[in-house]
């Protein structure tokens, strides 16, 4: 018995030595990373797993002997926290992948370098190379702080067989057709619906508002929530709830899509793969098209940009690497490793993108726009989601709720 505890004590001491050891050992590599100002190392933060970016980094290293690209993968869920701490300590990478919606927040905090001099220097970075909507995401307050990396947008997934039955084999092209088709689809009987409304997703509401002609937040930072266009969009969405066209929120969309109870849904390109894998039974019975239009058919421009961190010790090397990532070769490779759609327009001329579903997203990208570029957008949009919930779940009056929301948004935006 006594010996046992002696052993335990020795183990503890040994472990303490290990702790001390690992502390100092890694300290060395830490100071290396921090002082990576040797113009040879480019430190890059990517979201997702590194297997999608590592091959491209290798290609770059081969082309530029002596240069080392150090890729660190960061989980999406925690990336925002990680970025915050990097800003706080002024200790971070050279190149950061930025979710497009984060640009205003981090740009206004001065955490991202102005890209203008590098755009002059590298023709790959010219703004006309990329989709318009994607370029809009890189600009804040007239300064370009990022280069589009990959894009995504939302399209309409629909069951061709079921939509043909209600008279829309090509899918609905306008809001009116959308709702008409939806009513007929829901009328197939108990437990059948039109499409889910992703009311928790602030961008979902914005897309309908844009289509109705609203700016959501004007260029003068004035919110437009109580204006007729935005109200029209909310009324339209609310009517879908009132007429029981929307499935309960916990109905799994992919399952509903397979068994036909939810014959349409609006989502992004990643769902192509998910539907294919989970629902092989309905292959050939579904496709994707651009969103139905009201005044226009604007969709959300999402994806990621690449920025140079303000406190980078190697901005030149960072810019050169970003220029390489914007080349057609790198963009195509990234599509291959991650299925992310290229932001570079010329890349779309390759045959990989002739698949009708992908091409539908390609077409939608031309009319895709980013969320309002104000740094308070996250907070404002959360308020808009809460207001919409009060309408659909709480049964509040649309106009009154939108007046209140507009006032709240004015407060958040400091008007």
């Amino acid at each position, binding site marked *: 018995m006594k010996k046992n505890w002696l052993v335990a004590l020795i183990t503890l001491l040994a472990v303490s030595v290990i702790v001390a050891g690992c502390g100092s050992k890694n300290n060395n590599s830490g100071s290396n990373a921090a002082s990576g100002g040797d113009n040879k190392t480019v430190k890059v933060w990517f979201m997702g797993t590194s297997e999608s970016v590592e091959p491209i980094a290798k290609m770059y290293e081969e082309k530029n002997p002596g240069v080392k690209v150090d890729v660190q993968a960061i989980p999406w869920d925690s990336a*925002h*926290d990680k970025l*915050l701490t990097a*800003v*706080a300590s*002024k200790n971070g990478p050279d190149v950061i992948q930025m979710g497009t919606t984060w640009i205003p*927040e*981090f740009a*206004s*905090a*001065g*955490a991202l370098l102005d890209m203008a001099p590098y755009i002059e220097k590298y023709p790959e970075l010219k703004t006309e190379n990329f989709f318009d909507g994607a370029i809009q995401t890189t600009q804040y307050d007239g300064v370009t702080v990022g280069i589009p990396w990959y894009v995504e947008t939302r399209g309409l997934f629909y069951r061709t067989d079921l939509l043909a039955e209600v008279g829309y084999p090509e899918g609905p092209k306008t809001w009116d057709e959308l709702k008409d088709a939806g009513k007929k689809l829901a009328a197939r009987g108990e437990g059948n619906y039109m499409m889910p409304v992703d009311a*928790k997703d602030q961008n979902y509401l914005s897309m309908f508002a844009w289509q109705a002609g609203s700016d959501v937040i004007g260029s003068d930072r004035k919110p437009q929530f109580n204006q007729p266009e935005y109200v029209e969009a909310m009324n339209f969405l609310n009517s879908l709830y009132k007429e029981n066209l929307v499935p*309960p*929120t*916990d*109905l*799994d969309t992919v*399952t509903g899509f397979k068994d036909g109870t939810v014959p349409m849904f609006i989502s992004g390109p990643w769902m192509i793969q998910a539907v294919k894998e989970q629902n092989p039974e309905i292959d050939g019975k579904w496709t994707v098209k651009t969103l139905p239009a009201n005044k226009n058919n604007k969709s959300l421009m999402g994806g990621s940009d690449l920025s140079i961190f*303000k406190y980078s010790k190697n901005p030149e090397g960072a810019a050169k690497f970003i220029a390489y990532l914007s080349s057609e070769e790198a963009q195509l490779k990234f599509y291959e490793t991650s299925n992310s759609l290229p932001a570079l327009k010329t890349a779309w001329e390759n045959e990989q993108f002739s698949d009708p579903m992908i091409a539908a997203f390609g077409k939608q990208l031309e009319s895709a726009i980013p969320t309002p570029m104000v*740094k308070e957008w*996250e*907070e404002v949009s*959360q308020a808009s989601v*809460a207001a919409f*919930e*009060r309408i659909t*779940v*709480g049964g509040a009056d649309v106009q009154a709720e939108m007046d209140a929301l507009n006032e709240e948004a004015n407060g958040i935006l400091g008007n």
Partner: protein
Amino acid sequence: MKQHANSWHKYKYPYLFIAPAILLLTVFSILPIIIALVISFTDMDLLGLADFSNINGAGFTNYLGLFKDPVFIKSIVNTGIYVIIGVPLVILFSMAAALLLNYGTSWLFNTFRVVYYLPSITNIVAVAVVWGYLYNSRYGLFNYILSWFGVPGQAWLQDPTLAKLSLIMMAVWKAIGLNMIIFLAALQGIPRSYYEAAEIDGATGWKKLRYITIPLLSFATFFVTITTLIGWIQFFEEPLVMTKGGPLNATMSMALFIYNNGFKLSDFGYAASGSFVLFIIIIIATIVQFLVKRKEVEY
């Protein structure tokens, strides 16, 4: 001077024993709390984080704003409901489970000790996915079971009142294991001779439980009560992964509110002030516990 040396000599060991813990906690807990307290009186946001010269004092604006914020008020009420329902359930169930498991020593009891402990160690992501399925209003197991009794399906996570209870149920399930082993460890400390003596006096199972076991568990119960109470006032993970505080903020807890404002909206000053309100509530609750404990007769 001599007196100092004397008292140092006298108290050398306790001070040496607590020194490492106090040192580490001071640097990595107390100091950050003080920094957070300072932040709570400023308007610090991401801009301020990037460059401290952008931080302005805000006086009590954050604190005043909190009590005008209907979401915050709602989160206080919700947290109160979580605590009032959840904490007694956790204590009751975990004590019951420990008593059951302590009843025998065969392989059956050993196996089930692991079984009861499983929920506590299951990754929260898996828990969220699994319980999401259980609560699903259409395919979920719970509604399926209700249908046997002719009860209509419930919207477990969509109904504002029911959603709170659903989260409590899940959290209790997850919390039983942890507290159960604390009770188990405490039960091991009760000498068999006590029971033997009681049996000679003709005490039945219930009487033994009432007059020997539960009183002798009081020090463990006190620990479990305090830590569970503190934990539940900081109720966070369950609403985060299951409902994000919805529907209509019906499941929003104070800790989730703080997290949303701090990390989602980068409003650090506001979030910090929210957490000090939370801190004060916890301190009051803890002091009350200690006072109640002191009033109880020592065994």
